[in-house]
């Protein structure tokens, strides 16, 4: 692995995205539209339901969007033959994985800034903790989505399979992340499973920032677990890249 190759790869991926205005717009606008829609749904409900659900969704959207974009982008590298070609060059598998993580990490920062700003200033989301921490969590969350997307695309052979991996990888995490029912009220087995899944920690961290004035002590361990998942997914993902294929 060499930094120059990693950066060149990240730059190339960002350049590809820059030429695709519609994808960039979708990545930035869709989370805002969904948050706005949700705020509207709860606008006449008693209590402060949006303040409870909104932060959790800020933890769900970046992961979902980045998961889809990344798994399709890397699958495209496989099907167009650019991956096979790259694997005949000195490019390290880690260069490719980190290049993707870096490039989509940059997109994640943008998306997190836009979605968080929209949630707080337009939808009137009340947050007790610091907004910058909300953004940090959203970025780690999006990088997590990228890493999981890279891993999932290693198991997809066609676009149809790649798209199906979204419900397969992400929806179970969504059901168990504590948004529908607090995790400690789930059946013991499901709670144990949700204790392992990374999205649970993203949602926990977001909720901590929303409800506590000084949440750093609770958020850091959650961020730690998410980063372990990022590393794990990137390592496992690079194992699915084979220089030799049948």
């Amino acid at each position, binding site marked *: 692995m060499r930094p120059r*190759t990693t950066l*060149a790869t990240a*730059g190339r991926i960002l350049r590809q995205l820059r030429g695709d205005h519609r994808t960039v717009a979708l990545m930035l606008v869709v989370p805002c539209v969904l948050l706005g829609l949700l705020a509207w749904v709860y606008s006449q409900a008693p209590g402060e339901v949006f303040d409870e659900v909104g932060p959790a969704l800020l933890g769900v959207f970046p992961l979902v969007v980045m998961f889809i974009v990344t798994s399709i982008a890397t699958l495209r590298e496989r099907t167009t033959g650019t991956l096979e070609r790259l694997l*005949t*060059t*000195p490019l390290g598998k880690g260069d490719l994985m980190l290049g993707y993580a870096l490039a989509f990490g940059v997109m994640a920062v943008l998306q997190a800034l836009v979605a968080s700003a929209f949630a707080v200033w337009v939808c009137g989301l009340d947050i007790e903790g610091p907004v910058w921490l909300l953004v940090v969590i959203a970025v780690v969350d999006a990088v997590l989505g990228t890493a999981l997307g890279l891993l999932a695309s290693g198991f997809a052979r066609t676009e149809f399979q790649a798209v199906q991996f979204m419900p397969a990888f992400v929806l179970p995490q969504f059901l168990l992340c504590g948004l529908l029912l607090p995790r400690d009220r789930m059946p013991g087995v499901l709670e144990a499973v949700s204790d392992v899944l990374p999205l649970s920690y993203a949602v926990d961290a977001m909720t901590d920032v929303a409800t506590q004035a000084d949440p750093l002590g609770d958020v850091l361990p959650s961020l730690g677990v998410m980063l372990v998942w990022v590393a794990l997914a990137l390592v496992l993902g690079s194992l699915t890249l084979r*220089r030799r294929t049948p």
Partner: protein
Amino acid sequence: MTDAAIVVEDLRVLRGGREVLPGLSMTVPRGQVVGLLGPSGGGKSTLMRALVGVQVVAGGTVSVLGAPAGSASLRRRVGYLTQAPSVYADLTVRDNVRYFAAVLGADATAVERAIEAVHLSDHAGARVANLSGGQLSRTSLACTLVGDPEVLVLDEPTVGLDPVLRRELWEIFRGLAAEGRTLVVSSHVMDEAVRCDRLLLLRAGALLSDSTLAELLARTGTEDAEPAFLALIDAAEDDGGSGRGRRGAGAEA
């Protein structure tokens, strides 16, 4: 030190449960352009994938520049052009070549030189998606040339190109060989046989011929590459051959 750039011994490759290469041996001398010809489905692309080390092989050895094919030390020295142009359609020609240059450790002057070599300087700023098929495959070739490899494995680099461009590309190939580089070029176009130093005819995974064009013509008593190949293939089928891959053999040779 041997003067062979590529030595293949008893190479066996299975794809989808079928024996595509049932035990192939060949040698490619350094500094030559070797043409790999034969009916489609005969194993040309599989052999080329084995030469660059991306093909899982069932047996035998492939060594390139004295090292096993696909070794880390060869990744900068061997250039591979896939049959389908493998470049990023949503980038410009220059951005594509630049990226592969960065990966291969080449500099900015190499980028412009590679684009110039395939006559795409006028289109360097154009997105690949907007280019014609011929320009697309030339972009792909530029991404191989930019690394300045010692051995080039080119899978049908001239397919779909007009005669003028084909001639220009062959002049590039001849120039590269004159500098001491080794090229393995597969082709369907028989008149390209005259451009090669040696010709390998591959049918059903077996080498029917490995010689210069002159030797081939003398052996078959023909005056041109195409009838010579047809004569060899007919002879192989009359022998009963191996029977393998006969379905694929035919029209294209």
